[in-house]
């Protein structure tokens, strides 16, 4: 591969040294045209020469998040520039999302194997969403949790014998519909009275015998949410 120009933005001298070492030893194609320890330094460098890749730390000086802003500005000014975030914010997930939406091509966390040749080369080859292993592990953990939640919903439907009417009934209860209103829905061919029966029946299914006493509609709906039968983030009413 041809040589490419890199600017490293890193406020910690020791860390800067390490990063430089990594680039020099592992990515010989990279030509470090400058390093900046602060925002002002960085923009000064940018005025002198525009690099192909910016290796960006998020916290600079007194600000811990200024990198996000820098990333946003870079992206608006240089649409084709590669921006790889190299950060020690290994716990601040919110910041990751922010910087990705500000236009970063990838995030490498300063832990585990740190920065590797592959990461840099992938970015340079135009891949977006380049992450190192610790980052992916975190993403996987969240992803796994979500998938498990969905599976739990499927399991709950089977275990508690929930049919589509049960689901619809619970969903509309959660939305604050009265039983009369639910009975009036087009896709609910039931009378108010049989809905009441259904509620009792649901209570019996979702609660063990000891828990059953005093369960009202609110408790029932909350239970349904806990069992993932209804999804609180996806509560939409059916057509009337």
């Amino acid at each position, binding site marked *: 591969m041809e040589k490419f120009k890199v600017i490293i933005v890193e*406020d*910690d*001298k*020791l*860390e800067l*040294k*390490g990063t430089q*070492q990594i680039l020099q030893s592992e990515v010989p194609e990279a030509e470090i045209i400058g390093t900046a*320890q*602060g*925002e*002002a330094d960085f923009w000064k460098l940018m005025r002198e020469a525009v690099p192909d890749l910016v290796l960006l730390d998020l916290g600079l*000086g*007194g*600000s*811990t*998040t*200024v990198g*996000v*802003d820098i990333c*946003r500005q870079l992206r608006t000014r240089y649409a084709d520039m590669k921006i790889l975030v190299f950060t*020690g914010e*290994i*716990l601040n997930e*919110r*910041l990751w999302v*922010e*910087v990705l939406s500000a236009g970063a091509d990838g995030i490498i966390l*300063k*832990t*585990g*194997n*740190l920065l590797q040749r592959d990461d840099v080369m992938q970015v340079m080859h135009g891949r977006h969403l380049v992450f190192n292993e610790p980052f992916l592990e975190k993403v996987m953990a969240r992803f796994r949790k979500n998938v498990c939640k969905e599976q739990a919903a499927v399991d709950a439907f089977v275990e508690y014998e929930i049919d589509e009417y049960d689901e619809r009934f619970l969903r509309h209860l959660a939305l604050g519909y009265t039983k009369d209103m639910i009975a009036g829905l087009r896709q609910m061919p039931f009378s108010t009275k049989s809905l009441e029966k259904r509620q009792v029946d649901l209570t019996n299914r979702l609660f063990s015998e*000891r*828990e059953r006493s005093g369960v009202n509609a609110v408790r029932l709906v909350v239970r349904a949410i806990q069992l993932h039968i209804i999804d609180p983030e996806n509560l939409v009413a059916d057509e009337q």
Partner: protein
Amino acid sequence: MDGNDLAYRLRYTDVSASLKAAKEAYSSSSANSDDKAEALNNMAYAAYQQMRYDQALHLLKHVYGFSRNQLELLCSDVLTMKVMQRIGNGKSFFDARLRAQKRLHRILSEESSLTVRQKHRLHYALTESHIVASTYYYYLGQDSAARREIQEAAQYVNLETDTTQWLYYHYMMGSGGLVDGTPEEVTIAEFNHLFRVYTLAKANHFTYFEANALQSLSAMVADSLRATWVKQQRIDAYSYLFGEHLSWQADNTLSPRYQFAASMARHSVYLFKQYHDLFQTACALRTLGEVYFSAEQYDKALENFRSALRLASNHRRSPYQVTPWLAGIHENLSLAYSALDDKQQADIHRNTYLDLLDESRQNKELDSRKALLKQEAHSEQIQFFFLLLLTIVVAVLAAIYYRQLNNRSRSYEQRVRKISSSADCRQAEQKLQALLRDSEEHLEESREECEVMQQRINSQQERHILQRTKLSVVYAIIPYLDRVIAEVKKLDEMGENSTEHLSYIQELCSGMMTVNDRLTSWIQMQRGRLSLQVTRFPLSDIFGVISMQQYAFAQQQLILEVPDTDLHVKADKALTLFMVNTLVDNARKFTPAGGKVTIFAHSIDDFVEISVSDTGVGLPKEDVQTLCDSKVYDPNCIGTKNASKGFGFGIMNCKGIIGSYKKLSSLFNVCDFGVESEEGKGSRFWFRLPRVFPLLFLLAFNLFAQALPQHCYELFDSTYNANLQGRYADAWLYAENAINIVEEPIDTSLLVSLYNEQAIAAQALGDWEAYRQSNAECVRLHRLFSTDCSLASDCQQLEKMNADSRVLYVLIVLLLIASLTLFYMVVLRHRLRHRASMDDLYQRLSSLLQTFPQNAETYDAELQVVAQNIEQPGLKKAVQEMRQKFTPGLARLQKISDSIEDFEEKTHKQRFEHDRLYVMNQILDNSLSTIKHETMYFPSRIKQMADDMQQNGIDVETNHNLLDLVTYYRHIYMLLYEQAQRQTDQSLLRMQSVSVADLFTFISKTHEIDCQETNLQVLGDEMLLRLLLGQMLAVVSANATLCVEEHDSMTYIICNVKGQKFTPEQLSDLFSPQTERLEYLVMRQILRECDAACGHPGLRLEAENTEQGYRIFFSLLTAQIPTKS
């Protein structure tokens, strides 16, 4: 057998014997006893049967004269009815019946309290009265009434308990006129009744009924049609009777049927004679005569009728005549004579018959009513006269009253007009003023308390920010560590070509050591300020808070048991609560449904051990070991293998707190923390705090000084509890205090209870004098208290008993009231209403004034209502004046009390927040010092190894050792960091728009500094921004100015400093952990918090050199909506 019982039994067997027995009973009974009354009743009955009616009435009068026994009086009433029925005195019959019914009503209401014998007597009276009434109506020809009565009687007769009444009833049913149906059915039914009576009476020797039955049967057989029906349907009974009586003094001149009838009648006569019943003998003779008459043997009939008349004539001398009976005989005679063609005699008897008939006209009832009315009219005349007199008296009184009323109502009106200058009003005004003063003081106190609290919160928050800052420094090591790990791994790969990497590792270690040094010095710097808020407090306070979680436990089907405790400890209250809470939360998490969590405390020597035990999953042995022994461990590994883990964090904190107690003072050497656990069975976590004794006397003194009644109940509770727990001396003291405070009329029951408790205490203490005093007082008050209650019910009882005799009085009074009402309606009403309204108005106004400070909230509204209802302008004005006098004061009072409420609520909230912050800080302190102690030496060890490797070359083993060390270090470090981090999960910021000018004003109070004028508003937490500015100014020297700039909705606050400049090294490390001053890092931390809270990453904090010196600036979001505050 009792004479009376015998007399009663023999009454239908042999009347003379019955009389004899009754007389014996009479003479043997004591004076005025119930037995005597019964004997007299029995004697009267015998007299009645013997037709000595005057005698009977005389005896009954005697009973009325002395007996109070309602049951016997009832029997007398019934007997009177019987006599009156017999002699045809309708009015007296009804009088007696009315009396009987009233008495019956009363007796029946208390039926359950009667003895068996009394019940028999009651049933006798009941059946007898109905039968007599039936007889009465029957003879009057009112068959429906007669039937109704006999049916009533049917309910009560019973063969078992009273054979005679049963016989009487059936005899009545059989003797005609009381059965419904066709003539044939009636005949058969009547025959059945009579036959039953006959057989039973004969078997039991009830001569009277045997004779009566025979008499009636004879009359039935004499009727050919009825005889045929009977013969057809009841041939068995008929033949039986026939066989029994055909041969009895047979008269061969008759046909067998008449012979049968006559012999029965004759038998009847014989029996009645035996029984000595004149009346019935005559009746039987009449029946016999009628049989002969039917058989057309008129001479024999006449003979019998004349015998009957002879018997009746013997009786004629008596003052009471049985008119219908005589009339009947005369009628029979008249018929017999006319049958024998003795016209003259027939006419004589006929006339006599008619005369007698006239005498006993059918409408006797009306007769008696008429007499009654006459009598009433007479008494009404008297009453009328009496009332007339009364009316005049009342009229005169009313006139006097009217005059007085006028005067009074005028004076009342005056009183109302002058109310605003009355003493009540003045007093109320003074009270209001006093109240205002008090409230203002109170307000001032609340405000001060609130401010103090706010300051405490501020200092806690400052401390918290400092700790978060330190934590961020702790965190700053982690990237270095990660680099070290990466480098060590590379060493492995690189082999020889590793000098560069080794030196980089060494540099990194030096970096870490610098950071560690900084951290250590900052932590030590704070140490002097580290203090626990140690107070003495009762453990019940803490337990009370914990027991509020009962509902949450119940939700998980767990039982939370918090037994009462009276132990006091010396410790930090907020931290103790935190510890108990942590342990309880753990217990709850690891106890399955159906389990139990118990919190209890007991004292051993000079400490109190507080335990939280559960019936949960428990811990394996090695985990208990870990928890007890090691200072640092991985909390996530604690817990049973398969069950959920995560016991450890809270416990590590608890251990830390106990550790800091120990460091504080030797008093806390007893402090300790421990765990006992068995896997599957449950755990017990305990900690120890030094025990103290409550400041009893101080407390008592305080209570004396305050002397507030609401404390009485608390005191009573304390007394009660003290007694319960055997602290009698305390109990006595509490009670004494409370008694002194309670005012007797206000709460007698409380006083009784208090004296009671005091007596108990004194008794237990063996102080008999005190006991006697307390007890005497208790008993006295108790009597006083309980009489009040019983009086009303006693009165009611008396009233009820007197009700009957009062009827007349009530009637008169009612009339009087009616006339007075009329008078009132026509004349008095308006005056009275006016006066009442004036009085009412005055009362309302003055009560408003008197109860003034208590009703301050509703005072104005009530007055307004009053004013609206007044029509006279003068009065209205007076009320308005009274209202206006208080309006401003009340409004102010309301405002003040509202503010007090606000402040108190705010203080309450602040206290909560303060405690939360305080606990967080305390725990962070512990965590930080643990981090410091446990990890400080790692960097130097790593560096040592790296140095060795540089000198001795790298081999695989040392390399692995290094890697292991670094990895372990990171693991421990991350663990401790995360534990501390948990405490900072919650954001503390209250984002709001803050005026920059206000910030500048605040800061220029403490620092001499020039500030630019501005009207910009920024988004942030005011307290933290002040702190930020404070930190900034703390690091700059003099000659600083503050200015503000705004670009792209960001506000930059810039601090320009003249004269000095930063070196490039200083500038690059200024906000890094290697910095020289903590303040820079605090600033950085605050900005980071703001950044996270406003959801807009990219806030700047920078320092740079300028031409004249340097500047430090930071940016904040400009507040979108500027508010005027």
